[in-house]
């Protein structure tokens, strides 16, 4: 009995780790497997089309994870996160076409650039709080967006830029090599996840979470909330730049949409959909959003929707309309999103089991503080 209970506890503790590891292995094997998921993927998993879609999911999942560090861990509502994604994508694209730097050096320079940009803009933006912070970050992103559309000699303006394949390793070029890009996206996603995990578990993350709950108390305790928030902000910016670079390689180019305010809102929708404050929620949100967006677009062009009367056809043919409505419903009725709902189910089940076993357990460890949307 004791042994059983022990193994159960071990499973509970290491369960998420095992599930995560299995998922990563399965994802890594997908390009070699012939799995058909009708309605979700456009074809068998080994085909470039499906792999490209899954890679895009992973890029957005990484981006959502980085945004969750801001909104979930630190309670910072930023409207400018697309800036760092765009900086990564455009930075690498421009370095590849304008300089003769080797590929990996270019990525290194791009990442340092993204980090520096996040540090600089964060140092200014974090002087403000709440709505003012949202406004300042929005202003910075808008400046970036204007810069991209105005300086067309450097950024290609509305057309964007295409990757100069001369400087890219051959393994990342061409449709046949989509599986290599897929693995690259997977590696980046796993790395971003590990960094997010490390931040959340470290002293840094704890101070950031405490800042979210009560900044004044931290100051009184002699801690430095500003420095903490700035480091988290910079790490999130660095992750976003990495995601942007994978995006550039995956799309073999980048356009002004990658620095757009709309991208930030899209990421925000993903994070809220998945569940603010849950790392796996951000990943699920990134996947669910991207897949829904793609499949709803395909659905909109299908005959079934086309034959509907206009008042049904028009809303159904706009994926962003449907996703926006889902987002509003989640914000209004279940602040926790997908991960929050699942998590509270599990907690309730565990609690009921504990009660059934008539073990008088202290409830303290059950109520781990989760970030709420409300400040």
């Amino acid at each position, binding site marked *: 009995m004791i042994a059983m209970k022990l193994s159960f506890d071990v499973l509970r503790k290491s369960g998420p780790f095992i599930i995560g590891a299995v998922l990563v292995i399965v994802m890594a094997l997908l390009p070699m497997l012939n799995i058909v998921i009708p309605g979700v993927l456009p074809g068998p998993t080994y085909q470039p089309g499906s792999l490209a879609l899954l890679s895009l999911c992973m890029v957005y999942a990484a981006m959502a994870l980085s945004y969750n560090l801001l909104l979930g861990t630190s309670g910072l509502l930023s409207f400018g996160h697309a800036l760092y994604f765009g900086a990564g994508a455009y930075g690498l694209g421009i370095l590849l076409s304008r300089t003769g730097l080797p590929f990996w050096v270019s990525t290194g320079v791009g990442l340092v650039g993204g980090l520096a940009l996040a540090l600089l803009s964060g140092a200014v933006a974090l002087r403000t709080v709440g709505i003012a912070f949202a406004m*300042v970050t929005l202003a910075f992103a808008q400046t970036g967006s*204007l810069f991209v559309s105005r300086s067309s000699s450097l950024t290609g303006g509305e057309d964007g830029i295409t990757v100069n394949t001369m400087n890219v390793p051959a393994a990342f070029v061409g449709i046949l090599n989509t599986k290599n890009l897929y693995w690259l996206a997977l590696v980046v996603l796993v790395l971003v996840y590990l960094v997010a995990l490390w931040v959340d578990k470290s002293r840094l993350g704890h101070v950031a979470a405490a800042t979210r709950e009560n900044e004044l108390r931290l100051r009184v305790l002699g801690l430095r909330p500003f420095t903490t928030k700035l480091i988290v902000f910079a790490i999130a910016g660095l992750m976003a730049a990495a995601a942007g670079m994978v995006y550039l390689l995956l799309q073999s180019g980048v356009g002004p949409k990658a620095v757009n305010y709309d991208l930030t809102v899209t990421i925000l929708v993903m994070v809220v959909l998945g569940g603010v404050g849950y790392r796996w929620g951000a990943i699920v949100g990134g996947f669910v959003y991207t897949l829904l967006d793609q499949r709803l677009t395909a659905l909109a062009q299908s005959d079934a929707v086309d034959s509907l009367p206009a008042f049904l056809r028009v809303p159904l043919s706009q994926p962003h309309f449907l996703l926006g409505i889902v987002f509003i419903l989640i914000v209004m009725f279940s602040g926790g999103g997908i991960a929050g709902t699942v998590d509270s189910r599990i907690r309730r089940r565990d609690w009921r089991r504990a009660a059934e076993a008539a073990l008088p357990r202290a409830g303290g460890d059950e109520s781990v503080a989760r970030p709420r949307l*409300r400040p």
Partner: protein
Amino acid sequence: MSSVVLVLITGLGVGALYFLVASGLSLIYGLMNVLNFAHGAFIALGALIGWEVAEHTDAASWWSFLLSLVVGAVVGAAFAAFTELVLIRPLYQRHIEQVLVTVGLSFAAIALFDGIWGQDLHSVKGPAWLDEVTVVAGAHIANIFWVLIVAAVLVLGGLSLFLRKTRYGKIIRAGVENRAMVTALGIDVRRAFTLVFSIGGAAAGLGGVLAMHYMTGVTPEIGSSLLIFAFIVIIIGGTESLVGTAVASVIVAVLQQFANTYLWGTGDFIAIVLLPIVLLLRPSGLFGKRA
């Protein structure tokens, strides 16, 4: 000289447009602490319905022009009242969620407008007089700018009178000043919330129709580009007074026009960079009380 006059008056006209859009935002933010990201959708709906009116009537006539303004304002007000009652009110006092809901609404509504009207530019041709120019001190000013200025002055005057002279106006002003006290006096502030949203929506709808005539066309994106400048204006102007918003609108727009003309078209940059600068130096805006 004439080019300076031109820049000044066009700046005033664009500032008038910013004020029309920002006046509602400023009232809403001042009273309810909700930064309304859905305001862009109000503007777009007003403009698109205004375009429909122009399309189905004789667009070149003045009565059609006036009708499109009235219809745009009414539609904007109705949309805004709906937003307040259905989305904002249930989230009473939860500011971040209120902001998120307006973000979601704008996301969904603009997609819906794309579905209905498409993303292409719908061009409009208003009364011929709007395209003609009036010569002031040697500067050729398109007449649409005068219309914008007159509309903004009328809205500013009307709103100021409403806020000063009527009971509801006084409740709104008192609510901006100290909402807890107004509630403690037994006045239902929530009704004022709906009212403020409707007024803001009406101004946004009106601004949308005028912006359509100014740009001689409309797409569902019309509101998003204006919204950024409206945010800048209300942050710079502070949210305590409409006059502050009006002055900030003019300052931002005139600076923008000057920079566009004399500083290699950097107007948008300068306007946007003003926002963090002002927020850092005077967190409550140029005309706000010191926090």
